[in-house]
């Protein structure tokens, strides 16, 4: 991966229930996440179809670009807190960023 930009970071993507938004945002901010992006989504997974136009069963798509240690902490925390009872899926990608200072 030769860089068009200067620094390497992790992009953590989380798909989960929209009703968790408030809670999850509070959680990741406590862990030190300073920047994130959220958009609305629908989908299917082990918990079945989550495509209702209704609050009860729609998803959000949360993206966090940060360094590896923080990504690991966030992954661990979300897994521990939500994996058992909620619809949630996470994946991680390597990204290059322009201004590393903006992403811890």
């Amino acid at each position, binding site marked *: 991966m030769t860089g068009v930009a200067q620094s390497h970071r992790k992009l953590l993507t989380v798909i989960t229930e929209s*009703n968790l938004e408030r809670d999850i945002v509070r959680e990741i901010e406590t862990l030190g996440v300073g920047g994130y992006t959220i958009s609305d989504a629908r989908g299917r997974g082990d918990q079945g179809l989550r495509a209702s136009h*209704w609050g009860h069963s729609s998803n959000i798509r949360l993206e966090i670009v940060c360094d590896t240690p923080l990504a690991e902490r966030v992954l661990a925390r979300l897994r521990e807190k939500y994996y*058992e*009872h909620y619809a949630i899926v996470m994946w991680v990608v390597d990204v290059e960023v322009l201004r590393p200072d903006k992403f811890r």
Partner: protein
Amino acid sequence: MSLDPVVLFFALGLAAGVLKADLRLPPAIYEFVSTLLLLSIGMKGGIELARQPAEGLAGDLMLTLLLGILLTFLAFFILRGIGRLDRSNAAAVAAHYGSVSIGTFAVGVAYLGSAGIGYEPTMPLLLVLLEIPAIVLGILLARGLQAGSPWGEIAREVLLGRSVLLLLGGLFIGWAAGAEGLQPMAPLFFDLFKGILAVFLLEMGLIAADHLGGFRRYGLFMGAFALLIPPTFAMIGLGFAMLMGLSLGGAILFATLAASASYIAAPAAMRSAVPEANPALSLTAALAITFPFNILLGIPLYRQAAEWLWVR
């Protein structure tokens, strides 16, 4: 015992949903429509309250709280004892049935309007009060008085929930401005009420259809529960209405509230406080059986029962 034509919109939505046809309105419209309904109901109550101040309100409020607690316990023990549900699921379903459905209440209001039957202006207040104890109790039944329960957060969610706030806000506005002050707003909030309710019920039909499928999964007991609890709870509600000395219309609405099952406030609260409970179980029962039963058969039935008791 005739149906109000507004339920035909529910039937249309249900039919479309069963046929997997796409009549769904965007969520933005659903929120708009339900906001208007909540404000209308609150404002109507507030206007009447300004006209004829409520007497003996404190007693009514106490009895309403008591009813909420009683119904939740009753539901819980039936679900545990007969239905053999595990503790979390029994508690979550009980919270739904001890609480109330505002959509059902709105149909009741429209029904009384068509029938020309008046009711106490405090009904929206009783609605709010009946919404709350079941949720708190549901959480307690599931988790006990543990230290870890996020009570602050839960109190916030329930007390500052959209429906509670819009109802109480409407009540206050109606009370403060009075019928005359709200006259210029009547075309939107009062004249359109039933049309807006029709759109809301169309959407509810579609949503109910989505949950119909759940039934094969949860079996006979849940079906019977969702069908038999409403008339049972309605009768208990009528008993309390008598104790409170409500008018005929007030009694019908109060029975309707007792018979109804929450599908907005309770699901949200249970999801965050009792995550191990299966949310589809309660929603299927409340939305796909109890709601249709109440608006199609229940309300006229509760009216008959109330008339039999009141007009003796």
